[in-house]
């Protein structure tokens, strides 16, 4: 089964910009990782950055499967979780036997855990791609998640297994007690893993993975076995997922069976797909957005997972390239200097779209608060205006916003498409592919 969602090439390297801007981006990323905690130094933001870093590695590892090789996995958290468990057990063993293994090496152990499991099950799993692979990955995920509750001595049952990251041998005087030091450890591994995974996409293996995604039959004709290629991709993805799991274990000092579960697998799929699987940086954007929303929305609304689902459905239906796909679509227009002709239509479309979005939010919040708690806490603060969930006026406003916003937005987005077509035609005439 081919995968037209990701048929765009995975190349992100700017052909005309040359190597300078290419290395510049990595350098800027590295500097940003170092400087960020100095600017936002509160405990809350450090925790957020740590979680975002971990989820970047996890989402990038997922994209080795979905974006690069076209394997849709519903059980990627298995490798992540097993990596986390191995890391926790290793940390406890190091602490109790006084092995000379410092904490920064532990994520590698997690990676080996993920790799080991991927090697074990991967051969059977990657026999077929497409829907069958998706179902098998789901089945294996459920199998491992359920088994983890039976094997209590390894997985610690429902409470999980705890550890103490400061009990490991210190290096350079770093105890890794403060969150800042843990952040830098995570940032270090984010950088290493991202470079390694990017390098992987440039190797012959990475290229043949793309070929397997787009046309496995032709790959067979040129003498490669797609099964073996998928197996390798699965192992690499498992390795990096294990690193992310190991970092999570260090960050929280615990590993429990929730790490392996379907929710975790679903979230990484959301992150990678919302960000955009066709470009290397897509999952990074997705991981940042999803983690940020997850942390931010939980304080604002009780039904934040529903918003995730709706954003995801919206992306699947209207922008299957994800955020990265939307951004990269504009590149030829910017180069051909025709973007200016599209922007007015965007501005016109923005207003009804905003009304539609606000209407949907208002409807959801109204239902959520109407059913959840009568009386107390049923006031919705939307763009500074308080709405009472039980008041008919609120319902009327919501209906008007949704219906009116939808009807007008449909017209304006048709205009956007027309303006876009004209701009793209001009860009094509000027020699920029659109």
């Amino acid at each position, binding site marked *: 089964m081919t995968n037209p969602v990701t048929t765009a090439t995975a190349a992100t390297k700017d052909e005309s910009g040359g190597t300078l801007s290419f290395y510049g981006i990595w350098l800027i990323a590295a500097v940003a990782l170092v400087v960020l905690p100095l600017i936002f130094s509160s405990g809350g933001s450090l925790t957020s950055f740590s979680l975002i870093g971990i989820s970047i590695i996890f989402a990038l590892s997922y994209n080795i499967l979905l974006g690069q090789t076209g394997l849709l996995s519903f059980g990627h958290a298995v490798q992540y979780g097993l990596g986390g468990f191995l890391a926790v057990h290793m940390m406890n063993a190091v602490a109790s036997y006084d092995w000379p293994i410092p904490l920064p090496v532990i994520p590698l152990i997690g990676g080996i855990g993920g790799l080991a499991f991927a090697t074990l099950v991967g051969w*059977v799993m990657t026999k077929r791609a*497409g829907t069958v692979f*998706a179902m098998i990955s789901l089945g294996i995920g459920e199998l491992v998640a359920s*088994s983890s509750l039976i094997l209590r001595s390894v997985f610690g049952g429902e409470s999980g297994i705890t550890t103490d990251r400061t009990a490991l041998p210190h290096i350079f005087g770093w105890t890794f007690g403060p969150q800042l030091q843990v952040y830098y450890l995570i940032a270090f591994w984010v950088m290493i893993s991202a470079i390694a995974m990017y390098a992987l996409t440039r190797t012959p293996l990475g290229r043949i993975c793309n070929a397997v995604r787009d046309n496995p039959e032709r790959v067979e004709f040129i003498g490669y076995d797609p099964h073996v290629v998928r197996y390798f991709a699965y192992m690499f993805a498992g390795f990096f997922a294990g690193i992310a799991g190991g970092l999570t274990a260090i960050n929280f000092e615990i590993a429990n069976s929730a790490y392996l579960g379907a929710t975790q697998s679903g979230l990484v799929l959301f992150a990678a797909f919302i960000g955009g699987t066709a470009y290397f940086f897509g999952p990074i954007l997705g991981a940042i957005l999803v983690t940020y929303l997850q942390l931010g929305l939980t304080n604002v609304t009780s039904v934040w997972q529903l918003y995730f689902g709706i954003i995801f*459905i919206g992306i*699947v239906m209207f922008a*299957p390239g994800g955020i990265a796909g939307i951004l990269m679509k504009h590149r030829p227009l910017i180069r051909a200097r025709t973007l200016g002709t599209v922007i007015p239509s965007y501005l016109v479309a923005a207003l009804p779209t905003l009304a539609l979005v606000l209407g949907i939010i208002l409807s959801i919040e109204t239902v959520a608060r109407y059913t959840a708690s009568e009386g107390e806490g049923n006031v919705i603060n939307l763009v500074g205006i308080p709405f009472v969930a039980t008041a008919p006026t609120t319902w009327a406003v919501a209906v008007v916003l949704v219906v009116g916003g939808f009807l007008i937005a449909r017209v304006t987005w048709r205009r956007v498409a027309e303006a876009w077509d004209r701009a793209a035609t001009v860009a094509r005439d000027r020699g920029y592919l659109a």
Partner: protein
Amino acid sequence: MAELIVISTLNGILFGMLLFLLSSGLTVIFSMMGVLNFAHASFYMLGAFFGYQLTRWIGFWPALVLAPLLVGAVGMAVERYGLRNTHKHGHVAELLLTFGLAFAIEEIVSMIWGKSPMDYRIPAALDFPAFTVFSTNYPAYKIFMLVVSVVIFVALLITLKRTRVGLIVQAALTHPSMVGHLGHNVGRVFMLVFGVGSALAGLAGVIAGPSLVTQSDMAALLGPILFVVIVFGGLGSLPGAFIASLLIGLIQTFAVALNGSLASVFGPLDPSLGPSPLTDIWNVTIAQVAPILPYVLLVLVLIFRPMGLLGTRES
């Protein structure tokens, strides 16, 4: 022992028939449209919740008819406005759409009805023991569930094998474009099949709701087992789905009823060994292993017979 076998066989066949109500729709939709409907178990859950709500408003019997129709309408809307628009982006996008839907439906259900189990009771007319086997009273409601499932099964079989509609559906399974060339509206056939499949799942939800637990996580619990059923039976094979449903229903029910463990057969391990994976495995009862048995079956089938029990194609 004989009592346990009789009761478990009855329960197993019942659970198997319920699974078949779901997996039949899933497998027909899959072979027709190439879409693995992740939200299929969510339609089952919607059926249970609609059934519960309608039972409270207008009684069980109208709900038995109305709730599946409602779920079928939701299914048709999903096909018409969701899947048909996503089709151009490929099967993976369609699969992801249904995945997102399953996620959203679960959230919407728990938003409206909460996360705790519903008080969805067996209707009074069926709340009596049907017969007594050995010393166990077998509830009449379970017999009712069995009868409904069997009637639907027979009706489905007759519709598919003996009517003109069934003929078109069967043809559209293998040669959709040829059916289109012959002047049939394939898009509408797809929509109707999707609707009927969803309605069947909804019906399963309505009748299973009072007997099993009606809760917002019921879709997430049953969904993966459905996939095991259709992979095990062979993708796109209705007879395969039937056999696999019964088999998995029986295996699950018997496993839950049995309480043996390796420790009870071979005696306990030396306690001086301390806790280890071995003692975990040694002491775990068959009942505790029951939830993972379907997945073990799945892995075994994929290793030894990748096309499934009665499947003909590999993918």
